[in-house]
């Protein structure tokens, strides 16, 4: 009896103490990816995360019968990225991946600099720095082929997010993209863009997400467009399943900013045209270090 009493007293004290301490916002976004882009979240220390991203071909067909024939872009040629992230600490994640479009390898570092919190420490936002390097190894472009560094591109992103409530988060993403080799002298090697992303909870285990990257004016050559995506996160046991629609087949920043062609809806020669691709991300985490699973 005495022991139970002591236990409850200790619990009450610890509860009082923690009330005075800092409360950090968790799950600003459900996963380290929002749709194509990264969220402020980083991997947990010692956890490896295996990510498969997939973007199918164009859904839209002029001939309605082709819709089923190509099964809504399923037969239209897909871009896939297989990646592995690893959390060195709770605030530092490194990762690498390979996309099949243009045979691209990429590696990145993600550093969480600020954590949104209330209480003793009051911080209105979460701030994460994302930086990556990628190299295109496609040999079908004969101009790029003898010139390895031409395929290299970089992206630097500041991810600024705030979780307003359990149901709503907003993220701003000022982005700098550099590509070593562009087509024409008039095309910029450096592109600056601002991305905005959001998460809205609609059901206990379903979140709606949206993402748009606005390239600052006078940077994109004619025929290139901004990347707009909408999606849904399904929280299942053990992983997050993200379904999405986007006008871009690309999955890394230096490609979906600056290489995306065709906006979601446009008119070509007076005829309406849609550029919508279906896609998904599946993530699976593995504990590499730390305590075993219980």
């Amino acid at each position, binding site marked *: 009896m005495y022991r139970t009493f002591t236990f409850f007293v200790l619990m009450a004290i610890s509860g009082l103490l923690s009330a005075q301490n800092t409360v950090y916002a968790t799950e600003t976004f459900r996963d380290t990816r929002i749709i194509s882009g990264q969220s402020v979240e980083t991997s947990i220390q010692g956890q490896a995360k295996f990510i498969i991203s997939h973007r199918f071909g*164009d859904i839209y067909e002029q001939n309605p019968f082709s819709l089923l024939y190509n099964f809504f872009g399923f037969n*239209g*040629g897909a871009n896939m990225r297989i990646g592995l992230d690893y959390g060195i*600490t709770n605030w530092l994640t490194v990762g690498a991946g390979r996309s099949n479009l*243009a045979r691209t390898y990429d590696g990145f570092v993600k550093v969480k600099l600020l954590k949104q919190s209330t209480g003793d420490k009051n911080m209105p936002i979460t701030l994460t720095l994302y930086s*990556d*390097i990628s190299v295109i190894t496609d040999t*079908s472009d004969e101009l790029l082929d003898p010139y390895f560094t031409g395929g290299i591109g970089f992206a630097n992103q500041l991810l600024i997010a705030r979780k307003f409530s359990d149901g709503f988060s907003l993220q701003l993403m000022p982005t700098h993209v*550099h590509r070593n080799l562009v087509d024409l002298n008039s095309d910029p*090697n450096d592109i600056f863009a601002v991305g905005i992303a959001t998460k809205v909870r609609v059901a206990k285990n379903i979140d709606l997400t949206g993402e748009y990257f606005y390239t600052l004016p006078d940077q994109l050559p004619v025929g290139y467009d901004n990347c707009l995506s909408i999606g849904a996160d399904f929280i299942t046991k053990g992983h997050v399943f993200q379904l999405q629609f986007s006008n871009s087949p690309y999955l890394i920043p230096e490609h979906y900013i600056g290489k995306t062609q065709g906006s979601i809806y446009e008119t070509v020669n007076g005829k309406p045209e849609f550029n919508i691709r279906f896609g998904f991300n599946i993530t699976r985490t593995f504990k590499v270090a730390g305590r075993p699973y219980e």
Partner: protein
Amino acid sequence: MKFAFGLKMDTLTIKMKKTPLIAAGMLCIAFFFNSCYYDSKEELFGTTACDTVDVTYATTILPILETSCLECHSEANAGVLGGSQILEGYDFLMDYVVAGDANASSFYNTVAWVSGYVEMPQGSDQLSDCKIAKIRAWINAGALNN
């Protein structure tokens, strides 16, 4: 903990636990200071002028097919990889070409990624604008077996 040459770990000021952090830090620095170029194809390889006049089946179209199409659309592989659509050999290719009219040729429309057609080559970047222009020129000139 000892290294192979007997140096004690304690003598190093860097603790073993921090080495992954330092490695990651160096990786970060490598990212930022990695050689960064400001090149354009126009500057390096001259004006990317595209010769669409001297275009023949043997010297222009066949090499494009061999590098970008026949991996899947050869007679041997088409059944499994290429949806049974064979582009190997002039006669098979002409099943997808309307001589003299590129816009009516599915061969042109698929490689030009015309909306409503499957984008070829599947799972790769689009052919270069010059290659597409050459295919167009060859078809519009009558798609001759020359």
